[in-house]
C-alpha cells in the first residue's frame, strides 16, 4: 500500500491523531511557559540559584526521551500510562530552552540602560517589568519557539506510553514494517513543526525591539 492510498483511507484517524498530538503539545507548552518564564524572572537577581536551576533543566534534557517516559510510569501521581505522564515528560523537556532564554534575555541588557533605570529611581520590580522584560521578549520567544519544535517531535514518542498522538502511526508502522504507516505519522508531525516554527518566527520578529 502506498502512502497516498493510506492517507486517503485513514483521513479521519490521521486528523484525530493530529488533534491529540496538538493537544499534547499545547498543554505541555502552556505549562512549561507558565513555569519557565516566571521562574527565569524570579532568578534574575539570584545568579547562584539561576545556575542551579539551569543545571537541573539541563539534566532533564540529557535523559533520552524514551527512557524519561519509561522512568515516569512507576511514579505516584504524575506517573502511569497515558496523557498525564506524557505531559509531565514534555514539560520537563521544554523547560530548558524556555528557562535558559528567559534568563539570558533578562540578564543580557546593556549595563548603561540598567544604570540609567536605577539612577532614575525605578524600583527593582519596575526595572524588571518595564525594562528587562520588554527588552527580553524576542529572546524569550525564541526559546519558546525552539521548545515548541522539540516538543512536537518528542511528543511522537508519547505514543509508547499510550498517550496517543501521531506517534501511534509511527510505532505501528515500525511494527508492521510499513513505510506508508510510518509516514502517516511522520509527515503531519513534520508539517506541524514547520508551521509552528514559521508562525512563532513571525511573532518573534514582530516583537523584536532593537
Amino acid at each position, binding site marked *: 500500500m502506498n502512502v497516498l492510498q493510506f492517507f486517503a483511507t485513514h483521513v479521519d484517524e490521521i486528523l484525530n491523531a493530529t488533534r491529540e498530538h496538538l493537544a499534547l503539545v499545547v498543554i505541555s507548552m502552556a505549562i512549561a511557559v507558565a513555569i519557565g518564564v516566571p521562574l527565569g524572572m524570579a532568578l534574575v537577581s539570584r545568579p547562584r540559584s539561576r545556575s542551579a536551576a539551569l543545571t537541573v533543566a539541563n539534566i532533564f534534557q540529557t535523559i533520552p526521551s524514551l527512557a524519561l517516559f519509561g522512568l515516569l510510569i512507576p511514579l505516584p501521581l504524575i506517573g502511569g500510562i497515558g496523557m498525564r505522564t506524557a505531559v509531565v515528560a514534555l514539560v520537563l523537556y521544554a523547560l530548558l530552552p524556555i528557562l535558559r532564554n528567559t534568563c539570558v534575555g533578562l540578564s543580557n541588557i*546593556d549595563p*548603561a*540602560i*540598567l*544604570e*540609567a*533605570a*536605577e*539612577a*532614575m*529611581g*525605578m*524600583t527593582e520590580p*519596575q526595572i524588571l517589568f518595564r*525594562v528587562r522584560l*520588554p*527588552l527580553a521578549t524576542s529572546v524569550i520567544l525564541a526559546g519558546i519557539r525552539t521548545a515548541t519544535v522539540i516538543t512536537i517531535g518528542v511528543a511522537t514518542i508519547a505514543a509508547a506510553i499510550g498517550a496517543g498522538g501521531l506517534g501511534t502511526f509511527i510505532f505501528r508502522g515500525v511494527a508492521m514494517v510499513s513505510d506508508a504507516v510510518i509516514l502517516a505519522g511522520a509527515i503531519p508531525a513534520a508539517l506541524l513543526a514547520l508551521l509552528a516554527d514559521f508562525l512563532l518566527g513571525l511573532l518573534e520578529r514582530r516583537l523584536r*525591539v*532593537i
Partner: protein
Amino acid sequence: MTDIIIEFNDVEYQVSATPARPILSGVSLQIHQGETIALLGRSGSGKTTMLKLINRLRCLTSGKLLVEGQDVRDWDRIRLRRRIGYVIQEVGLFPHLTVQENVSLVPALENWSPARINQRFAEVMHLVGIDPAEYAARYPRELSGGQKQRVGVARALAADPAILLMDEPFGALDPVTRAELQQEFLALARRVSKTIVLVTHDVREALLLGTRVVLLDAGRIVAESTPLEFRQLQQPIARQFIAASELVAGAAQ
C-alpha cells in the same frame, strides 16, 4: 554664600576585596546651590564613584555625605534618585520606548497628570534644542549621537530636579558636536539654575563648563580652584593636566 546643597565630609569608599587601597578617601567638599562643579581626574581617580555616592548608586563606607541637609543613608533611595537628574556618556535611553516615553518616565512614575507631563516634555525638549512635536514618537535608534545625548539631558531634567549629575556627558560625541553641546550646556546651565556636578577627564571641558574645578587623584581631592586660577596650581597632577592641554593647543598651532 548661597546654601550648601551637597556636603562631603571625610568620605571614604572602598570595595571590601581591596581594603589596602580605598577608591576614595578623606574626601571633603561643599557644593553650593547653583554651582557647576567639574570633577576632574584621570581614569580611576574616583571621580565617577564620587558622583555615584551622591545618588547612592554606591554607598559610602565611612564619613558623612549630606544631600539637601540629610544624610544619604537616611534618604529613601528611590525618593533621592527621583530628585536628582543623571546623565551618562552612554546615555542609556530605553530602546523600546519613544523619545517622549523616555523623557516622561520619571514624571510618569511620580504620577503627574498627563497634561502636566506633556507640557513638561515640550518644555525640556525646547531647553535642549529638539523639536518636541517632530521627535516625540521617534525611537532612540532613529536619533544621531548628539540628539541622543540631548534627549538624555532632557530626560534628566524632566522631573525638575535641583541637582544634575553628569558623567562625561559629551565624551562619546565627535569634536564638532561636542563643542556645540558644550556651548549649549553653558546657556542651559545659566537658564535652569541647577546645581550641576560634572565628571570629566578633559581639562578644557572642566575649565569651560565648571564654575569651580575639583581635581582628584588616586581617590583624594588634591586641589580646588576657579577655572581662572587653575593654571596657577602647583600640584604635580595639576601641572600634568595643564601641560597636556597646552600640548594639544601647541600641536594645533
